[in-house]
């Protein structure tokens, strides 16, 4: 690794028997996320990617509005925090003005698939040379567990207390399949981070997404299905089990669009 840990975390004592540590680019701050939430893991995977590709000086992230609004507190890259839903527009502005930089957005399902639908679709349709990290937990976490566009049918939230009814609230929006149809997307995949195996697959996908921006062929779009154990009112273990049984059948994991060789 080209990164030097001590430069960033010089004040942290390193024990002799260290077997696992925070990656250097994760800032030395306690995460604001609930225990069992996927955000911390996903943050880390992105920072590991930036370290491994040695692209810190050319990487700019965009934080959303939602649980990860404070992503810039934890991720050590330069970060702009966007108005709700507008991350893809910010990323477009930066990427057009710095075409050789690595620009990524980090967005939840309310941000990307509800209020930011237009910005997302059009950035994907223009084929912006950006990475979109889309964390889908089927709920608005930060505001206290309201129904999201990705909330499953029948799923109870604070604004669908009797379960999401399609006749009133419509259908869950599969943004990832939707953007995969657009010629402006280059790589589209859906992953999760709830088991070590899935974390490794997600890491591979995120790293691939960043590497592919070098081709300047369009958007790399990585959805990560994640639990919101607080919002779903379950233990982390139960939430992961529920996610496997209910979310994955509706949001199946795997690559949806890969660049042809």
């Amino acid at each position: 690794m080209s990164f030097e840990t001590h430069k960033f975390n010089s004040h942290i004592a390193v024990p002799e028997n260290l077997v696992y540590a925070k990656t250097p680019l994760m800032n030395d701050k306690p995460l604001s996320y609930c225990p069992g939430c996927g955000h911390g893991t996903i943050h880390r995977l992105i920072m590991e990617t930036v370290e491994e590709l040695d692209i810190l000086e050319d990487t700019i992230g965009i934080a959303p509005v939602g649980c990860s609004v404070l992503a810039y507190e934890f991720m050590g890259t330069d970060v702009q925090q966007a108005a709700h839903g507008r991350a893809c527009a910010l990323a477009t502005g930066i990427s057009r003005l710095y075409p050789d930089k690595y620009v990524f957005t980090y967005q939840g399902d309310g941000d990307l698939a509800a209020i930011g639908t237009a910005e997302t679709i059009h950035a994907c349709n223009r084929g912006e040379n950006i990475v979109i990290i889309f964390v889908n937990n089927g709920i608005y976490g930060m505001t206290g567990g309201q129904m999201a566009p990705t909330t499953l049918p029948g799923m109870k939230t604070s604004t669908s207390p009797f379960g999401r009814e399609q006749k009133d609230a419509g259908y869950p929006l599969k943004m990832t399949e939707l953007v995969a149809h657009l010629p402006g997307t280059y790589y589209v995949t859906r992953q999760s981070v709830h088991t070590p195996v899935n974390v490794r697959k997600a890491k591979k996908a995120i790293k691939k997404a960043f590497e592919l921006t070098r081709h300047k062929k369009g958007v790399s779009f990585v959805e990560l299905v994640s639990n919101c154990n607080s919002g779903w009112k379950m233990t982390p273990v139960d939430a992961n089990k529920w996610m496997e049984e209910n979310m994955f059948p509706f949001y199946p994991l795997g690559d949806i669009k890969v660049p042809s060789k």
Partner: protein
Amino acid sequence: MDKNVRLMKGNEALAEAAILAGCDGYFGYPITPQSEIMEYLMAEQPMHRTGMVVLQAESEIASINMVYGGAGAGKRVMTSSSSPGISLMQEGISYLAGAELPCVIVNVVRGGPGLGTIQPAQSDYFQSVKGGGHGDYKMITLAPFSVQEMADFVALGFDLAFKYRIPVMILSDGAIGQMMEKVVLPVQRPRWTEQEIREMSPWATVGRTKDRHNNIITSLNLKSDVQEEHNRQLQAKYKTIIENEVRYEESYCEDAEVILIAYGTSARICQKAVDIARHQGIKLGLLRPISLFPFPEAALIKYAEKVKGFLSVEMSAGQMVEDIRLVVEGKTKVAHYGRMGGIVPTTDEIIENVKNLIN
């Protein structure tokens, strides 16, 4: 020929001036009566002249947020629109003000409310000088009254925007945007290199170097005391701007019995009205605010105790007149004459109102 003299529409002159100002990026969405700005830029292909990016966005909301991204990365970026589009941008402008990002926003005003009319108006004074979006903030607001000023205010706008890290609004109107006049174009300014941006704007998110912590562009402060302190700093900045950046022009004010206060298209009509009135023996003057924020308060106070009254002439139901009344604090009469819906006031109407004010 030494000078680059052209006959141009106001919108076109502004677009050309943007290229010449070393602007890095324009992001916009079509709306009448300012579509010539993006049309001119697209046809001119500044990418081949200076490397300037021009992008048609999917909405004004996207445009202003592309501006936010570019501004946050230290670039000279701008957008333009007309009234309904500016309303859509207000969220983004509030974020730009909160995050203290420099940019130029052009409003070629048309009549409202709602879809209103495509004809010129000055009914966006409030949403320009009072903030417009949520929160306590201001934009420097410059009001051109000629094609020449449409061109000149772009570079000035960028200079002020970067000097104070603040969004600058060029508040024009459909008449100034559409009319053709002689214009002397400025000389080409170079665009900044990435190294220059890193040195001049060390706060910009250009990519973190290993000798510094990560740069963050945000308007979020969840701790109340931090947010209050941030607001105090913003207010202190606005105070500095009020002390240093007032711009106005006066004519025939020294001996005037009545002074017209007008900007933009209204000021042009008022210039003529002053000429006619003086020929009729009426001591009429004109004070033309060029910066609407900061407002030329001292000049108004200076004349408030000398004149029989001020007449605010606006293509609105009376917006700037409220600020004049706040400044004058009852020291003299303050009247308003305005037309709406895209109708421009005539010199006869103005002089009639001056006579009413005197009597």
